[in-house]
């Protein structure tokens, strides 16, 4: 059974990649090393893991308003996520997704934080808002 959900597309574009799921909000500024793409926030669920090339699934952003530029910095080094899926996005992540040209979908018809697992192959369409798991990790 394939998991497929409809959300609201915030930024356009289509991308496919391996999912990295965080149940904790992410602070891209200071929480993610912009030179490596690795989450450095102490005690964070994703601490030590890289967001580079991943479909990053998380509740939403947190922390400094500078995080939009952190997404741009990551993208300029090809260390950014290829797509973002949020429960409820926010101004900082949305503006960052535009600067970094990453598709962003939020408010899905099903809970992406539960139904998408780290390691799943996922496709995100930022125009139609469709998020689908192409291949489960197990």
């Amino acid at each position: 059974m394939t998991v497929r959900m409809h959300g609201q597309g915030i930024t356009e574009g289509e991308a496919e990649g391996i999912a990295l799921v965080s149940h904790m909000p992410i602070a891209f500024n200071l929480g993610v090393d912009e030179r490596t793409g690795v989450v450095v926030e102490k005690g964070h669920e994703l601490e030590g893991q890289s967001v580079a090339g991943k479909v990053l699934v998380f509740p939403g952003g947190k922390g400094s308003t500078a995080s939009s530029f952190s997404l741009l910095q990551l993208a300029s080094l090809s260390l950014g996520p290829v797509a973002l899926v949020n429960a409820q996005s926010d101004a900082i992540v949305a503006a960052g997704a535009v600067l970094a040209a990453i598709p962003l979908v939020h408010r899905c018809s099903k809970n992406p934080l539960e139904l998408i697992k780290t390691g799943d192959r996922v496709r995100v369409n930022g125009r139609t808002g469709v998020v689908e798991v192409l291949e489960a990790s197990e």
Partner: protein
Amino acid sequence: MKMKLTPDQEKMLQGGGRTQQTAMAMLLAVGRAMDATDLIPVASAHIVIDAFAMGKPGADLIVSMAESGARFAVPATINAISFDRRTGPSPETATDYDVHQQRMLEACQVMGAVATCSCNPFSQGIAPAFGEHVAWSESATTGYVNSVLGARSNREGATAIASALTGVTPRYGMHVPANRRASVHFEVAFQPRNESEFNLLGSLVARRSQGRIPVISGLAHPGADALFGFGASFAIVANIPMFHIVGITPEAPSLEDVCAGVPPAPISITRNDLDRERAAYDTDGSTGVDLVTIGAPHATIHQIQEVAELLKGRKVKPGIEFTLTTNRSNFALAESSGLLSTLVSAGVKVTADRMCFGCDLGARKYQRAALLATNSVKAALSAPGTRGVRTRYGTTRQCVEAAITGIWKGSEG
């Protein structure tokens, strides 16, 4: 839901240059995410160009915007930068960051920004009027804009530049009157004795508000500087865009006015609570002070005056580094009024433009865990991580005495 655009806004999105299109795309993405119905005009923008957070890619973007011929559509001001323009980048801390900082500052000036270079533009006479819609970034300024001035701004980041370029912002959050009401009520059972205690109170209220907009009752008017300090501390502890103080801030003539319906039962804040909050910043038991910093956010002329009066005729103990950070406007006032020479001859290092101690991510860390004395919640919270120091937190007087004697005395105001 699709946002309604005016013909002019549609033109910026479709027919404007690449820069305007990027700016509009950012504002529309934010508007969609936040359920904005339309875009509304803003009267001004305050822009953070933090070289550490934006890096070369951020600087390249800003420079390309200026080179594309784009110009700001509304008055724009600039937040604190990584170095003092009077002396230029310091060789001690010089990094690529300063190069990118310089490029971004120049590009913003080409686009029409005024190089205020301050995290306290209010002390430079730049203040939105009651009811004005604006796009101000830097958390401490946004809190003051909403709460004390009664103008309307969300916590902006990159979007402040987008609003400066287009003159509009999505209608959501603080631009919608219903979202500005308080939903948690604190009653303060004592009067804070000085600005340092107001800073602590801001931190305490932010921590206890749990994301809700608070209203505080029981306070006598502490003056503009204390309200700014309260707001700066409030903003660094929680991402809440505003606060109200009954009888003091303009949207809180009474509790009933500021709460949607019946005011929530008050939560009492006592002096004991404040003492516990102080302990969160005055974290080190040792007394041999190495560093003293004042002016985070940038000191006002009255705060500079207070330091000068406490120092008059005395000297900072050799070996102690005492920094005071402010903006060019107050630096010039301090110079012309003679306060600056008092400070400099006493051994205080006064900088303008530059980010405050602790906010300066690119600056060097202290090798051994030096002991910092400060009256700033913001510095006390950020400096241990960014500069590798331990902290003592207290009043301006305690900080100045520590600079003169090298010894931290007591923790009571």
